[in-house]
């Protein structure tokens, strides 16, 4: 088990290293003077020279790469071009907003998705199952930013029930919760469909197992079999998928944060892209990839913990 996790962690570390090298080479593939790209066209020659010196751009490429990786290893993601603040500090400031949004979306989406999946299994082969299947695929297909825009239009602009902008004042829990409703709806909707389909497939598989036949032979009620025995099996089966998905949710919040003008990792990346704040973009991309890969390891750990066969497979 430990060996398995060590291997997965090592692989994740290698992947992150490659991502960092890819980002570094992308930075060097930019056509034109990197200092102009980083500082913007309005920068003076003195500013560019200072920047060149600071970033070590006058040294050989390989030396720059090792310096870049060395700084990364120390947790130094560079400085914001405009405010000169450390990128890592800025990311850590907004990260809680994104994690809150992802968690909120996750909780309601998994709850509703599991429920829909169960209802579909109970009605297996009937029109209820068919309808839930149709709705689930549609939920998965519809782009989250269209959901965000439409829900903003209906609930914030027309009905004026919920705030259209921001994350609520710090300390005001009620306002924060209200500001969370629409964005988490937009982020989670696709996941409702995804989870319901996974649960349905896993439960239908479980319903074909011998122990379910035995339960039926003992006269256990069908709903009890579905909600108590098959569901347990299905939940175990989807746990690992859900852990990977959480990494996806973190990035799925990009559009919701922009549409609802909510502070967060996605909004920050977008603003950094718009202002061509190069170190900040690299930093956020690296941090999100890191979170993503961490979720992948967690998923592997959960799977390996639940299913000993996986441990020996890799």
């Amino acid at each position: 088990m430990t060996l398995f996790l060590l291997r997965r962690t090592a692989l994740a570390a290698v992947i992150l290293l490659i991502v960092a090298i890819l980002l570094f080479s992308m930075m060097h593939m930019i056509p034109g003077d990197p200092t102009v790209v980083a500082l913007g066209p309005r920068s003076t020659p003195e500013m560019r020279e200072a920047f060149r010196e600071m970033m070590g751009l006058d040294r050989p490429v390989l030396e720059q790469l090792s310096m870049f990786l060395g700084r990364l290893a120390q947790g130094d993601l560079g400085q914001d071009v405009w405010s000169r603040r450390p990128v890592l500090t800025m990311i850590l400031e907004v990260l809680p907003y994104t994690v809150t949004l992802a968690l909120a979306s996750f909780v309601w989406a998994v709850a509703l998705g599991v429920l829909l999946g169960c209802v579909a299994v109970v009605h297996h082969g009937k029109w209820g199952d068919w309808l839930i299947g149709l709705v689930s695929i549609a939920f998965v297909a519809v782009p989250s930013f269209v959901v965000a825009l439409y829900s903003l239009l209906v609930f914030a602009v027309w009905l004026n029930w919920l705030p259209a902008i921001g994350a609520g004042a710090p300390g005001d829990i009620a306002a924060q919760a209200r500001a969370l409703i629409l964005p988490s709806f937009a982020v989670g909707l696709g996941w409702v469909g995804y989870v319901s389909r996974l649960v349905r497939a896993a439960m239908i598989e479980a319903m074909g197992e011998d122990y379910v036949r035995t339960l039926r032979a003992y006269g256990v009620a069908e709903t009890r079999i579905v909600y108590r025995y098959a569901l347990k099996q299905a939940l175990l089966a989807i746990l690992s998928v859900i852990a990977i998905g959480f990494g996806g949710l973190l990035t799925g919040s990009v559009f919701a944060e922009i549409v609802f003008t909510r502070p967060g990792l996605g909004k920050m990346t977008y603003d950094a892209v718009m202002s061509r704040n190069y170190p900040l973009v690299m930093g956020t991309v690296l941090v999100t990839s890191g979170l993503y890969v961490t979720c992948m390891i967690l998923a592997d750990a959960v799977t390996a913990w639940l299913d000993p066969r996986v441990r020996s497979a890799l």
Partner: protein
Amino acid sequence: MAAVTATTAGETTIREPGPLQRAGITLAHVLSHPLGAIGFVLVVLIVATALFAPWIAPYSPTAISVKERLADPSLSHLLGTDQLGRDLFSRVIVGTRTAMTVALTALSVSIAIALPLGLIAGYGPRWLDAIMILVFDSVSSLPMIMLGLAVVVLLGPGVSTVILVIVLYSVPSYARLVRTQTLSLKTRDFIKAEQVMNAGTPRILFRHLLPNVIGPLVILACLDISTVITLEAGLSFLGLGVKPQIPSWGNILSDGFAVIRNSAVPVIAGGAPLILATVGFTFFGEALRDALDPKLNPERKP
């Protein structure tokens, strides 16, 4: 479509139906499922709109009319006009063409790149395979939209950047599929027979492996069309995709978002075709996959 059926039909059948007949059988299978029927109707509608866009659109999608800014829907402007007085209906119609062009170009380029890469990884030496898989995994571990933002900040917005982002996102998973297929085909008797008969590697790769690998790949690409449309519209919505004057659903949404408190029509007009297209292509893709190759369904355990 006929080519897809041909490769998945299996090599043991002696008298196979002709390509047209096979396409007909596949289509009948897709249509027999209500999901596939809805999807097929939507797909036909969208493709037809894209093909005949210039004839359907009553106005030029870029003609600015300052006097008629943000006009309500009327008989002369079916969906009203946007903040520059451009006819929204025409923009939506021509936007269909933009979406389809970008999606099809990007997916064709992805397939063209992923095929040789996957064949090399699957048929080439083990060390090369290991390196390629590691690189694919690394690129896939970059979240798609973040990858897009990183590329846009480097190359600037534009159609070619959008296509590049889509290619970067799809090539790893496509190449992986080709690799897996190649690995399993490599041990099959008909490939071994070729090797014994001293067939050259290019002959084995292109004459025997390629036709067997391309079918599943095309299905995967079909399933991806709605993701790709979403990605293009999403980047355009952020102002990082196709240029603002080019009509695209994402641009319409972006313009509409800016005036959402004055008029709801542009946002609704930009979002509705996007919903119809993504839902339509997903329904159709799923039905097509089930008709041609149910093994590809990730929810089905082998």
